[in-house]
């Protein structure tokens, strides 16, 4: 992550991915689309290593390959960061259903 990211005031959260195939293509698209509805900078990270990636980037989210049964870490910074983290956690918790 960039130097700027370290200085941001991140709101953090996490939620366990329950789908047995993990964060696969369709959920990845849903997560990206939801993230894009917020102004805040939003990043996610898979449990057990890897960098934080931009949750609004379809490519980054698709390549994250976050596994099933493990928490997906979410952080956001900006005016609507709290709502963004809550919304993304809720999406993961309801198994990416609409």
């Amino acid at each position, binding site marked *: 992550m960039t130097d700027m990211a370290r200085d941001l005031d991140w709101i953090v959260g996490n939620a366990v991915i329950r789908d047995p195939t993990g964060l696969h293509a369709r959920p990845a698209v849903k997560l990206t*689309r939801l993230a894009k509805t917020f102004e805040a900078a939003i990043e996610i990270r898979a449990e057990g290593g890897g960098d934080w990636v931009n949750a609004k980037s379809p490519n980054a989210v*698709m390549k994250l390959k976050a596994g099933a049964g493990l928490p997906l870490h979410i952080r956001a910074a900006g005016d609507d960061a709290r709502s963004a983290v809550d919304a993304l956690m809720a999406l993961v918790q309801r198994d990416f259903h609409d």
Partner: protein
Amino acid sequence: MTDTVSIVIVSHSPDVAKGAADMVRQMVGEEVRVAWCGGNPDGGLGTDVAAIMAAIEKVYTPKGVAVLVDLGGAETNSEIAIEMLSDGRGAHVQILNAPVVEGAVMAATEAAGGASLEAVRATAEDF
């Protein structure tokens, strides 16, 4: 409603083109407009300039149209279809250098929310 870049899928096979378009609609939703065409003027495998032009015109927006193509003739026929569009609309239409199915889904995901054609292109081509 936010104006978004539209997606056009051009395949030698109408089944492939329709399937890819269905996948985009189901994964990304109805917000991004998707048109497709496939098959030659006789209905066999191939591509048809008139059909490509019609597909582009169906979802055309000055915001931009991203065209995904499969092999050979699909690309050259799409190039010529874009050049033959009237009123300078071809300037807002680009062929992306990305695989049809994956490229269409990634492009539509980026397009949702109102990204520019350049951003859509980068996302689909970097995947």
